[in-house]
Structures are given as C-alpha cells and as structure tokens.
C-alpha cells in the first residue's frame, strides 16, 4: 500500500474516456496524450484452447480488423459503452496506462477517473472499476459521461440553471439535463456510431447487393455522412464484394444515400432527445430553450446533425468545440475539481 502510494508520486493523474470506439486519456497539465481505438488483437497459438497473447492494441490492432489470419482475432472489448470482455479490457487499459507513462523508472500507479455511461448497471460499473484497478490504478473514480462531457464542453454545470448535453459515442448516446453539479435527468440509448456503420452496411447490401466491411462503412460515414440534406452533394467511391458475382466491385455512393441509410439510428437519437425534453422539469426546460443544448462525442461531427435536431426540437443546438475529446477533458477538469473541493463536488463513485 505504502509502495503503491510511493509509486503514485511518480505517476500522473489520468482521466480516461473508455469508449466503445476510442479510448482517450487526458493527463493533467499535458492535455490529451492518447487517442486510440478501443481494439485489441489477440493471438491464439496452437489452435483452439491454446495459450492467448496480446498481438496489438489500439491503432495497430484496428488496422487488423477484418484482415486477420486464423490465429489472430481483433476484439473490441467494449460493447454499447460497457465491458464485454473483462480480461481484454484490463490488458488494454494496462497497455494504455503504461504507454502514457512510457519508459518511467517505476511501474505507474496513477489516480484514474473513468467516464461511464449513465445507463450502465452497478455490475458494469464494478467491472470497469476492477478492470482499472487490475491495470495498476491506485484510486479509481467513476464519473457519468454526460457530466464529464458537459464540463469538457465548458458548460456552466455548477450554476442553478438547466444545461442539456447530448453525447453521441460509438456505442451509446447519452442525454442529460444538468444543474448545480448534478444530473437532473439522464438517459442512455444504445444507438451510436457503430449502429450508423451497421446501417450503412445494410443499406449498401440492400441497394447495391454488395458487402462492405466495418472499416469501409466508417470511412463512408466520416467522409460523406450527413444527417440533414445540405446544399452540396458529396460522393465517394467504394469497393465491396458483389454478392451475386462474388468478386470485388467498385461503386459510387452520395451523401443523400447515406442520409437515407442513417435515418433509423438518427430517429432513435431524435426520439431520445424528445423524451428527455418531456421528462425535464419545466423551469430547467425553459433554461434549455433559451440557450440550447450542446452536442459532444464523435457523433456530433456528423454533418448536419445539429441542424436536424434544431428542426426536430425547435431549440438551439450547438456543437461543442473539439467534441471528440470533451469527455476526457471534462474528466481531467473533474479531477482538478476533486483536488480543489474534495470528491463530494460530484456524485462520484
């Protein structure tokens, strides 16, 4: 215990956004130091039942998705914002924590704050906590993602005024109404970037009779994906396996087609926002109507999403600056706030 504390003196406090798609680590005083996909490539030698070892983690592992030989499996250990594979998550966290403290003399033992989806159960939270402790963390704090996102976006969460944040991640979309450093209403829907990718894959298969991979679907979403019809129509050339011919064929997709493909996940998000507004106490609702809601997370980068939500809700919708890193940055700021005012500032666990 004493030695762990001693090692802690040589470690930095970390805020980790353990997301389904990406893991971001914010270090106090240094900013975001790590932004890598939450992917682990596991090698299994000598066939099924043989010893398993970690082949790659992060960016390197993501490049392997869909391109691995039989002995290697690229795993995404988080699903819908929560841990699906405990051991692999622990290994991944261990790798990232070590990477942040690379080449240090002592094995790091930092204080870690991890952002968890507000809809996660106690068992899922405990799994995340244990996983971080197993990865060498000295103290583990959990903060709900919308709270961290709102702090990271620079919203006045401490004021007696309603603020609404919509954090669209890879696996989940979190909606919360915050006031006085607390969550008044929160909801989590299991719709996110991954569901959008799936929707694109299904659309292409249905309309073009062609099968594309997850990586390609993600690239299409990033490059021409939009949630609201714009003035310009963007196009992209894609290669996939034609199902009838069985050979790779290339074809062109445009942004209107992707808009059509994304209708299902987008309507899920819109209805979640509507429900949240219905459930919000009227006084806080009027604050939100006056100032608007803030979008964070990777999903906020989808072109025209703010416009769509404005049209659907009639409220001002603002995309936070650097929305991808809001949660990690907010977690870092929360760690500072804990130091300034004690852990009771937030409803941390």
């Amino acid at each position: 215990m004493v030695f762990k504390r001693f090692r802690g003196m040589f470690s930095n406090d970390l805020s980790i956004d353990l997301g389904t798609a990406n893991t971001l680590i914010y270090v106090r005083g240094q900013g975001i130091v790590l932004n890598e996909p939450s992917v682990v490539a596991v090698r299994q030698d000598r066939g099924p039942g043989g010893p398993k070892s970690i082949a790659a983690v992060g960016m390197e592992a993501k490049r392997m998705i869909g391109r691995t030989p039989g002995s290697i499996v690229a795993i995404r250990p988080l699903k819908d914002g929560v841990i699906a594979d405990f051991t692999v998550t622990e290994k991944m966290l261990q790798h990232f924590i070590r990477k942040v403290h690379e080449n240090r003399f002592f094995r790091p033992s930092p204080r870690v704050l991890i952002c968890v989806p507000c809809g996660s159960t106690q068992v899922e939270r405990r799994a995340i906590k244990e996983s971080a402790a197993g990865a060498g963390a000295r103290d583990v704090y959990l903060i709900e993602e919308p709270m961290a996102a709102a702090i990271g976006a620079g919203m006045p969460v401490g004021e007696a005024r309603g603020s609404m944040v919509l954090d669209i991640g890879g696996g989940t979309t979190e909606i919360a109404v915050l006031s006085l450093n607390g969550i008044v209403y929160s909801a989590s829907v299991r719709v996110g970037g991954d569901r959008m990718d799936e929707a694109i894959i299904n659309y292409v298969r249905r309309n073009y009779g062609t099968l594309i991979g997850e990586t390609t679907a993600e690239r299409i979403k990033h490059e021409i994906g939009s949630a609201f019809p714009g003035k310009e129509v963007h196009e992209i050339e894609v290669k996939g396996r034609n199902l009838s011919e069985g050979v790779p064929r290339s074809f062109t997709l445009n942004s209107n087609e992707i808009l059509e493909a994304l209708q299902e996940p987008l309507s899920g998000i819109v209805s979640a926002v509507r429900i949240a507004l219905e459930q919000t106490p009227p006084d806080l609702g009027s604050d939100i109507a006056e100032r608007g809601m803030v979008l964070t997370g990777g999903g906020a980068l989808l072109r025209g999403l703010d416009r769509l939500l404005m049209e659907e809700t009639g409220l001002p919708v603002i995309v936070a600056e650097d929305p991808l890193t809001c949660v990690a940055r907010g977690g870092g700021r929360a760690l500072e706030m804990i130091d300034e005012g004690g852990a009771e500032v937030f409803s941390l666990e």
Partner: protein
Amino acid sequence: MNRPVEQESDMEQSAQSGAWGKRLAAIREKNGVTVSAVAAELRLEPKMVELIEAEDLDQLPTAPFVKGYLRHYARMMDVDVTPILEAYGRVCGADAPGLTKINRLYESTSKDAAPRSTTWIIVAVIVVSLAAWWWTQLITFKNAPEEEAVVELSEAVPATAMDTVPVDNGAAVNGEAGVELLLPQLQGSVETPAAVSPAPESVAVVKTEVATPLVVAGTSTITLKFTQESWVDIADATGARLFVDLAKSNSSQIVTGKPPFNVLLGNSEGVAIEYNGKPYDQRPHNSKGVSRFTLGAAD
C-alpha cells in the same frame, strides 16, 4: 504628440470589438435580413440576436454557447466563421482552459534527469541509513562490556556487607566506574584501610562493619579467592552463566545469583570458596584437579 498613437489604439479596439457581432449585423443588414428572421433560423429569441450584435458580453451566455450561435449565424449569412470566432475569442477570454488540441506525448526515458537524480537520491538515502544503523550498532557493542562490568559490580555491592571483600588490581581497573559510583553509598559504614595500610601483596582488603549481610531475597553469593590460576564456570538456577572466565592467581570474584549454582572449578586446589560468607569445602568434589558440584541445593 501622443494623439496618433491613441487614435491608432482606439481604432484597433473598435476594430476588435466590432469584429464579430457588429460585423455579422453589418452583413445581415447588407443582405436585407431582419433580426427576427435570424432569430427564427437560429431558434433563438430575437433579444439574444440583438445581444450578439451589440456584443454585450455581460448578458450573453458563456463562451461555448455564443460560439455555437456565431457559427450558425455565420453559416446562415454564408461567411467564413473563423475570423469571427477569433475576434470573439480575443474578447471573451474564457475559452482557453481545457480546449487543447491533441498534444504529442512527451516520451520520457530512464536517461532523463528526473528519474536519474531520483534514483541517486534513493540510493544515497539507503546508504546513509545503512551506515547510521551500522554506526549505532558498533557504539552499542563497544559500550556493552563496560555496562556489564558496572552491573556486575553493582550486584556485587551487597556482598561487601559481608566480612571482607578483597579487590584485586585487575578488578579495580575494570570496574573503576562502578567503584566510584557505589562507594559513596557505603561511606558511613565502610572503612577503606586498603589505601592507607601497605599491603604486602597486591590484594587490597576492604573491611566493613556491617553485621547483617545485604543479601537480596532469594539470591545467594559465592566468593571465590584464587591463589592459583583457575578456570571457572558458574551457572545459577535460571541457567544463566554468571561467571565464565579464566581467573588469574591472587584475584577474587564475587558471584551473586539464584541458588542452586552449578559450579565448575579447574585447578580447584588453588581456589577457596565462601558461600554466603561461610567457607565451603570443595575438596570432596575434586576429581583430577577439577571440581564439579552444586552449591545451595539444600536452600
């Protein structure tokens, strides 16, 4: 003289303050769009649009919201939002904390100054503490025999209450401190003619007038007088070895402990024993010059 400079700074200020809200207002007027139309498009109240155009920082909400409004407003007016946001950032001044770009990770190595110096400090601390520990151990070890001598003599003092306590030179040298400390306690009753009367031998005799022996309850005293060199091993009832040594000729030794004593005397012919002040004949136990016997077993 200062006027041109003042004018210049005034112009800079007006340019800066007018670089976002007022600029958007000018563009809006140029395009012939009303405030209410902008407010409807941005889903804001017209009052908020007016506050933006008036650049009223006191009444406007916090920076993240205003930046969002400016982005929408600029998009609606079809102008580049970057200079507008930059101008607003200069005056709002509150957006700086936290909004950092992705930094490159500083890769520290074990060759860096910090870990190296820390290592050396830790090594130095360990070496110094080890040295300190060794030094204290050494001092304790050096002091131990002296302390033991004092204890031995202080234990022996009650025995001085008995008839005579011969003190040999060697013992006096060894137990100087003990003698100095203990003698004053006996001043009233102890005569020390040894210092005055010329002793024919090196044996000094201390005579006392104390009649009753100051024997501590449950302990007994053995007085050994050596006329010849002898090796002695005396253990008491607790098994503690009270005296194990090679005794020189013409010396004496007082041993106090809990009876019965297991006594071994080498060259026992040259040793006279007194047990609690009474002479004890150890000759029956003599076997080839060595006596082994138990003293005080009957007590």
